[in-house]
C-alpha cells in the first residue's frame, strides 16, 4: 500500500533508510524542523539547517522516488532562548518560497515555560502573516497533558487561526479527544517507550474514527523506527480493518492536509 509519513526526521537517517521506506510503500514524507540533539549557537546554524531541509533532503529522497516536504521553525527546546528564537523567526521568510515548504513547524512546548509559550505565539503570528499551515509538537510524558491544553488555549484564543490547517502531533489517549473536539488535525506518533505503539494507535482509531487523524514514525536520532507506519498498517490489517479505512489514515488524510499548503502540487503516482 502506498503511504505518506507526515512526520519523519530524515536528516537523522542514513540513505539506506530512504531505500527501505520506498520498498515499504512510502511515496511522500514531510519533515518538520526539530532539535538536533544539541542547542545551536547562532541564526546561521539554523540557516544552514533550513538549506539542508529545502535543498539537500529533497534530492536525497528523490533518488528513491519519495517526495520530500518540510516545515520550518525553531523548536520548543531551543525556544527557551527567546533572543535567538526571534532572530530565527525573522529569518524564516527567506525560505518560505522554497518549493517543498508546507508551513511552520514543529512549533510547540517542551517544559511548558513562559519563554516557550512566548515563542510559540510569535511563530503563530508568522504563520498567520504568511498564510502558512502549522505543525505542532506536544510535550512528552508528564508534561504532555498540561502542554497540550496550553497549546489548545493559545490556538483557540486566536480567531485568525484556521483550525483545519493545524496539525497537533504526538497525541495519546488523554490528549486526542480535546484536539479533535476543537477541530484540529491530530497526529499519532509511533515511537518506543515515550509515545504510542501501533496497537494503541489502532485502538484510538477504533474509538475516535478516522477523520482528521494521521500516524507517523518521527524517525529521528533517538531510538525510533522509520518503518513504524507500515507496522501500523499491519496491525490494522490483522484486526480485519478495511483497506479503504487504512488508506484514509496513512495516505488520503495527509494528502488532504498537505493540499492546503500553497506549494503542495505533488501528483500521486498513477
Amino acid at each position: 500500500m502506498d503511504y505518506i509519513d507526515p512526520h519523519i526526521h530524515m536528516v537523522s537517517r542514513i540513505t539506506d533508510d530512504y531505500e527501505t521506506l520506498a520498498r515499504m510503500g512510502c511515496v511522500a514524507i514531510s519533515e518538520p524542523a526539530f532539535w538536533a540533539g544539541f542547542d545551536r549557537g547562532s541564526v546561521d546554524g539554523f540557516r544552514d539547517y533550513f538549506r539542508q531541509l529545502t535543498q539537500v533532503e529533497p534530492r536525497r529522497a528523490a533518488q528513491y522516488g519519495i517526495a520530500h516536504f518540510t516545515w520550518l521553525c525553531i523548536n520548543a527546546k531551543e525556544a527557551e532562548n527567546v533572543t535567538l528564537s526571534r532572530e530565527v523567526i525573522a529569518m524564516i521568510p527567506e525560505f518560505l518560497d522554497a518549493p517543498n515548504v508546507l508551513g511552520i513547524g514543529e512549533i510547540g512546548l517542551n517544559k511548558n515555560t513562559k519563554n516557550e509559550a512566548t515563542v510559540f505565539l510569535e511563530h503563530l503570528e508568522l504563520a498567520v502573516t504568511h498564510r502558512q499551515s502549522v505543525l505542532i509538537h506536544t510535550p512528552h510524558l508528564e508534561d504532555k497533558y498540561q502542554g497540550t491544553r496550553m497549546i489548545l488555549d493559545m490556538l483557540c484564543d486566536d480567531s485568525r487561526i484556521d483550525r483545519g490547517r493545524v496539525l497537533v502531533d504526538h497525541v495519546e489517549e488523554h490528549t486526542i479527544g480535546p484536539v479533535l473536539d476543537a477541530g484540529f488535525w491530530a497526529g499519532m506518533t509511533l515511537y518506543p517507550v515515550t509515545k504510542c505503539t501501533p496497537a494503541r494507535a489502532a485502538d484510538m482509531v477504533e474509538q475516535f474514527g478516522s477523520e482528521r487523524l494521521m500516524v507517523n514514525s518521527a524517525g529521528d536520532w533517538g531510538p525510533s523506527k522509520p518503518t513504524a507506519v507500515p507496522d501500523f498498517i499491519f496491525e490494522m490489517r490483522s484486526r480485519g480493518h478495511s483497506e479503504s479505512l487504512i488508506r484514509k489514515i496513512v495516505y488520503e488524510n495527509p494528502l488532504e492536509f498537505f493540499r492546503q499548503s500553497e506549494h503542495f502540487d505533488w501528483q500521486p503516482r498513477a
Partner: protein
Amino acid sequence: MSADTPTLLDRQFLTMRAKLLELAADWDRLERGGELAGNDSRLEQLRDAVRVLLEESRPRAEKVQTIFSRRYDPSWRSAMNI
C-alpha cells in the same frame, strides 16, 4: 471493525500474561534493591496505575495517562503573564 472479545483474548492472552510477568519481576527487582530514601512519588503513581487496570470501567489507558500527567491549570496565562 475489531474482533470480538473471545477472538481478542485468544490472540492476546499470552502477550498480556507476559507483560504482567515482566511487571511483577520489575517490582521484585525494585524490592530487592532495598528501601528508598524518603518517599518517591513515582512508586505511588505505579501502584495507582495498577489499581486502574483492575477497575471494571473504561477508558483505562486514558486514566493511566492521567496518573502520570502534571495538572493543567486553565488560568496559566495570567499566572505566566502571557
